[in-house]
């Protein structure tokens, strides 16, 4: 596994290991920046295949942090809002990666077979589900909540980071009239326009981080 470490994650890991708690948490947010190259990563998907960001060069990549048992995630899946969004985005040629960063023993943790089962039973349509039980991808991006969305343009630049929509609530009624930041950003990217709301405050359950080892 160590051999696969990229420079960024290696440096981040070094920094995380050596700095005090306060500085560590500061880094948890600092690494991903709209307009800058998106942090590269490698992770194993539900089929056991190693996937990396570079594999999708030239395509728009959407990262969705998820935790099947989080009430905020369930709001979007029980209403089929998330699945519909996945289908629409992949149909337009985007790559959708659902990332599960919960470590073993924490809420939302899944192994490959469970991840696949969840995709089938929920009729979800991600390109792949990435398993990140040591929370490395989450740290690289500074993901805070489930759901938390990142959009990376075909050149590898981070184009959007933040909430899935503008209604920070776990109540299903809040879906009515919600503005999808993802649809807005994708439409603007497609039209060659700058993303008008490129960084928003993500809402939801905390990402369950693995302790730094």
């Amino acid at each position, binding site marked *: 596994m160590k051999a696969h470490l990229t420079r960024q994650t290696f440096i981040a890991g070094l920094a995380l290991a050596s700095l005090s708690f306060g500085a560590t*948490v500061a880094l948890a947010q600092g690494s991903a920046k709209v307009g800058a190259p998106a942090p590269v990563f490698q992770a194993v998907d539900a089929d056991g295949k190693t996937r990396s960001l570079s594999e999708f060069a030239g395509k728009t990549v959407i990262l969705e942090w998820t935790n099947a048992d989080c009430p905020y995630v369930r709001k979007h899946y029980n209403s*089929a809002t998330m699945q519909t969004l996945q289908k629409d985005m992949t149909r337009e040629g985007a790559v959708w990666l659902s990332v599960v960063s919960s470590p073993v023993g924490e809420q939302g943790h899944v192994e490959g077979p469970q991840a696949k089962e969840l995709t089938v039973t929920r009729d979800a349509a991600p390109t792949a589900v990435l398993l990140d039980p040591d929370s490395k991808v989450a740290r690289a991006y*500074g993901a805070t909540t489930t759901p938390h969305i990142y959009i990376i343009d075909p050149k590898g630049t981070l184009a959007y980071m933040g909430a899935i929509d503008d209604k920070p609530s776990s109540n299903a009624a809040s879906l009515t009239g919600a503005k999808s930041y993802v649809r807005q950003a994708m439409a603007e990217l497609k039209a060659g326009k700058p993303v008008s709301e490129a960084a928003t405050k993500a809402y939801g359950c905390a990402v369950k981080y693995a302790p730094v080892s």
Partner: protein
Amino acid sequence: MAPAFRNGFLRKTGLALALLAPGLLAPGLLASGLAVAAESAAVSTPRVTVTLLSSRDAVAPGERFQVALVQKMARGWHTYWQNPGDSGEATRISWTLSQGATAGEIQWPAPHAIPVEPLVNFGFEGTLLLPVEIAVPQDAKPGERLTLTANATWLVCEKICIPEEGAFTLDLPVAAAAIVDEAAQAPIDAARAALPAPAGFKGTLAGDGEALALTLPGLSGPPSELRFFPLSDTLIDHAAKQDASAGPEGTVLRLARSNAFKITSGEVAGVLTFKEGGLARSLSLVATADPALVTSAAGSADALRPAVVRIPLPVEGADLTLWAALVFAFAGGLILNLMPCVLPVLFIKALGFAQLARASRAEVREQGLLFLAGVIVTFLALASMVMAFAALGSSVGWGFQLQSPPLVIALAVVMTLIGLNLLGAFEIGTSAAGVGHGLASRGGRLGAFMTGALAVVVATPCTAPFMGAAVGYAVTQPPALGLAVFLALALGFALPVVALSFAPGLLRLLPKPGRWMLILKQAFAFPMFATAIWLIWVASVQAGPGGVLAALVAVLAAGFVVWLVGVTRDTGRGRILSSALAVLVVFAAGWFVVQSAAPEATTDARAGDIQAWTPERVAALQGEGRPVFVNFTAAWCITCLANERVALSRQEVKDAFAELKVNYLKADWTNRNSQIAQALAEQGRAGVPLYLFYPASKGGQPEVLPQLLTPDMLVTAARRAAGKELKTAAR
């Protein structure tokens, strides 16, 4: 069990004594018997136990007092502050209060930074009191009850998060003098004493490269463990360390910017916490932001802040300008005149003018103006009630008065009595005519005013076209603007009658008074009876068979009373007896109505292919690629029923819906339903009807149809909604 009983008993006895003789007993004497806190029933989960605590056992008219939502959290669990930090959601309360009472905002204690490595949340552990100030109405009377219901939602998290909710009710007696509940007052006072104090100085926030520098001129030192909690969740990186240092102008706190950084006004607010002499202190701070930091466009920052939002922000009504709303309201009021229940009342008024016109044109004009006054006063009174409820966060809208079965029944009685009067079964004011001309003409003036009021009351079931958007706009505006819209509505409504009273030329167009007037008058009794039948049907939908029984008994009692008063009018002693009997019958019938007409839960399941509406179902069906039509309706809304008859139930519409696989959902607002009220508010409406056509694409925004439907309109809208589906699929 036993001590609880004893305490409860003592408390009740104490209250009874206090109510009977408020001046006789010293409050101190009562306090010993009142040691049990006035506290609502608890909502208890393994994670948190929540109650509503009152600092009063009895409240005095016009006073302000404190209640508190109490959250007792199990070890390891926490709830959230206004800005929850990296994740989570603040506790929210929406209030349902007795008439005239108001509730303030939550008075938030200073939060704690709760690390959930590597994230940081802002919230509370252990026992939390969230105080809220309640204002008792000035006109509350000793002996009445003040009922407060806090509908609270909160997210409670350990590592995992559970959204929870509960309704907490306090039912407090109103007494001449307040009775303080010492056991509750003490912890509430303590919680309020610990609230962040105003800082007494203004901070300044400036950019410092990638970071932010918050200068605090009033703090020297810097104090230990200083931390700034901003109200906005898009200002700082919540988890980042905050370095404090001494600068030339006071303490400077270095803050990392949020990666969703956005400031939309020139000021930022928040809470400072620090230690002073080992004691925790907190200050509420306002800081001036360097204009270079402020984003000009109002954007997501405000929308994301989980503040307690009392009135859902309208989507469409808000787009109306004041002038457009005024024009719509005026036109809506004008059209209201044509509604079947209003027309007879107005026609009779016009006929009255025709008779009077021969006597005195001045008198006709006076009557017209009095009618106008009656209309305006009644409209503004109703509007004030709707707006007061809306301001309190209660989900009422135009027509709310028809959501109460007793009021529906009262309207049915009014309609029946008007009908009987038109038929000549009894006369109003005939007895006064015998007394003297002065009284009679005063009765005429009062009558003109009351006709105006009555016309408004009978018009409320009908939300005329254009009115919906205008009323929706009105309830979301500051009171003065909102009342201006209702005033326009009233002027439009009164215009035909007033115009008639000022234009004798128009009156001359009417045929000469004669026998035809009597016949027409009698004929107009039947629309009134029809309206009464419709209202009784509404009562049957709301309250079941009990509602029908109550309504018919009320109609019978009303008929009996007017007959009784009529036959005994000229008898001397019999009159007193009959009056007493009439009063008795009215009270007995009223009591019976209130007792038997309790609202029934409306059954959502409906026959056929019309399904009950929920937002989830709309989203799910859109997800399946099906266009969705939503009919927001109510049994008491006559415009809604008319639309169902003339458009929605027509065969060509049904065929088109079937062919295009349109799912027809119905949101029934006959009884109060906060979810429906919220959905209406999101479209900028305060009442029904509302017709929405959702396109077959997930998350697609609905098309709002006009309030008067035609079959053609529905078929084309269905095609549009389904057509979008084809376009999306092709993309």
